[in-house]
């Protein structure tokens, strides 16, 4: 039977500083991160023959980056516009291209001036993300940002399962703790439950710490065949499984109330396929870098990826013990998008690779062998399972 399992590996990782104002173009950011990833793999720009990126009309097309890298040919070129699910979609499609011989060494990146330029938390993000639907049905009623729209899903979860503000806060607090021991992280100010509960309510039920950062910067990885990776500079981190999907009646973020059950993560529709390809169960996952546009997204994906039953995500994260670095399921060991930086899970992929190389320093999950990385754009989502 055909499978992608263990056919492709991450051979290099790279990133730029994560800031509020990079002072350079997203093209420059992309080139810096890609160069670092390529050198980390022990390769040169001309060795790369495939390029992929995910963006939201907020970043340069990949062929410009290919130009600067000095790629001698482009056997694989993918430019994906599916929001936060995008990078993990691109990663798995690039892996499929490598496995089927379309390309050999593929660099994948996310580069954006998401704080100094187009900010997704501001009003003018609506046309960009929700297009016609947004400008006709959402702007007139003031349901404008992804925060407004995801908060609608979170409220469903609170209605249906009794999820509490304190449980949302537990996610934010855990990740802030991790960010404090992470030199890459943008937000490293200590936060306890009182700080969280007293923080500004932005769109009830979301407070400011429930919402991810806006960031300038870039992250990149280099993928190659498992066999080739074993001859390169770093210990390979293998893609054990990959999947993407979602339920019926999908749409952009503004279709937040349209899913059969908005309180259910899209992951419910493909987690089985993911674990089946890997040949493991959720119990085998040592850590999870979960797409965290908002704290709520972490809770419903913990359910969706089978770490607990639907509705039990709140109690699972309550108090932060289970999801801490030393806990039964460390979540977002780098601080995630809530506290490290917002790069549509490309930074989650970088962190997961460091964890599996056992190069995560103070953040290291003991004996980490298998990790989950998820992407998410609400109605559609994507994920990979990695192992060393």
């Amino acid at each position, binding site marked *: 039977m055909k499978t992608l399992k263990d056919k492709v590996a991450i051979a290099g990782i790279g990133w730029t500083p994560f800031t509020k104002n990079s002072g350079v173009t997203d093209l420059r950011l992309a080139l810096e991160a890609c160069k670092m990833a390529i050198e980390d793999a022990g390769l040169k720009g001309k060795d790369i023959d495939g390029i992929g990126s995910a963006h939201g009309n907020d970043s340069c097309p990949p062929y410009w980056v290919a130009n600067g890298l000095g790629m001698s040919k482009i056997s694989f070129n993918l430019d994906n516009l599916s929001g936060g699910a995008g990078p993990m979609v691109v990663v798995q499609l690039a892996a499929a291209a490598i496995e089927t011989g379309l390309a050999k060494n593929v660099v994948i990146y996310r580069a954006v001036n998401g704080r100094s330029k187009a900010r997704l938390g501001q*009003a003018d993000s609506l046309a960009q993300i929700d297009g016609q639907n947004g400008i006709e049905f959402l702007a*007139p009623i003031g*349901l404008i940002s992804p925060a*407004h729209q995801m908060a609608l899903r979170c409220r469903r979860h609170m209605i249906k399962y009794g999820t509490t503000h304190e449980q949302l806060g537990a996610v934010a607090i855990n990740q802030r703790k991790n960010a404090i021991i992470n030199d890459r992280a943008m937000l490293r100010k200590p936060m306890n439950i009182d700080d969280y509960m007293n923080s500004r*309510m932005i769109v009830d039920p979301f407070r400011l710490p429930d919402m991810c950062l806006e960031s300038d910067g870039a992250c990149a990885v280099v993928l190659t065949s498992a066999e080739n990776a074993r001859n390169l500079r770093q210990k390979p981190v293998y893609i054990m499984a990959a999947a993407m999907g979602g339920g019926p*009646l999908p749409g952009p973020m503004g*279709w937040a109330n*349209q899913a059969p059950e908005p309180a259910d993560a899209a992951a419910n529709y493909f987690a089985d396929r993911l674990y089946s390809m890997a040949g493991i169960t959720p119990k085998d996952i040592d850590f999870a870098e979960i797409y965290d546009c908002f704290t709520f997204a972490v809770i419903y994906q913990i359910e969706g990826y089978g770490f607990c039953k639907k509705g039990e995500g709140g109690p699972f994260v309550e108090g932060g013990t289970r999801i801490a670095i030393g806990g039964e399921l460390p979540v977002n060991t780098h601080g995630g998008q809530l506290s490290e930086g917002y790069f549509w899970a490309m930074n989650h992929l970088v962190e997961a690779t460091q964890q599996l190389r056992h190069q995560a320093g103070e953040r290291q999950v003991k004996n980490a062998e298998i990790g989950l990385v998820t992407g998410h754009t609400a109605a559609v989502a994507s994920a990979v399972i990695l192992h060393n």
Partner: protein
Amino acid sequence: MVATDHVKNWLGWRFEFELESTKECDNMETYTKPLPITTPETKEFWEGCKRGELLIQRCKDCGTYRFFPIPMCYNCNSFNSEWAKVSGKGKIHSWVVVTHNIHPAFANDIPYAVVSVQLDEQENVRLLGNIVDCRPEEIKPNMPVEVFFDKVTDEFTLPKWKPIR
């Protein structure tokens, strides 16, 4: 308006209709919120609102209602649809309360609620809208509501929701 330039750049090469909200209009001085930018396929919905009728797209071949409007029936793939009048009644399925403003035109409404109303006609037909005659803290799950039409400009009437008390 903040959204206008961005929308023009994004849409300018794809659609041919004008940006309705930038036209001069007698009431525009008092109403500054974004107005719906419509398509030929949705203009009947907005005309219905002007007449005080809530119209929902319905497949002529299998009778399935759908919202948001989309040209094809997801149930039977038919392109034959009509705009069918519905009762205007539903129940609160979810809601949010915007407490920190990000758009200048909504500044005076803070805090304002946006509700998702599940229509009585079909379980998965849910409309988003603002609620009137109801404080944000009064909103409850499954609260019965009915549609109320608010003529905000000469050109546009918006469907809003009132609790059935």
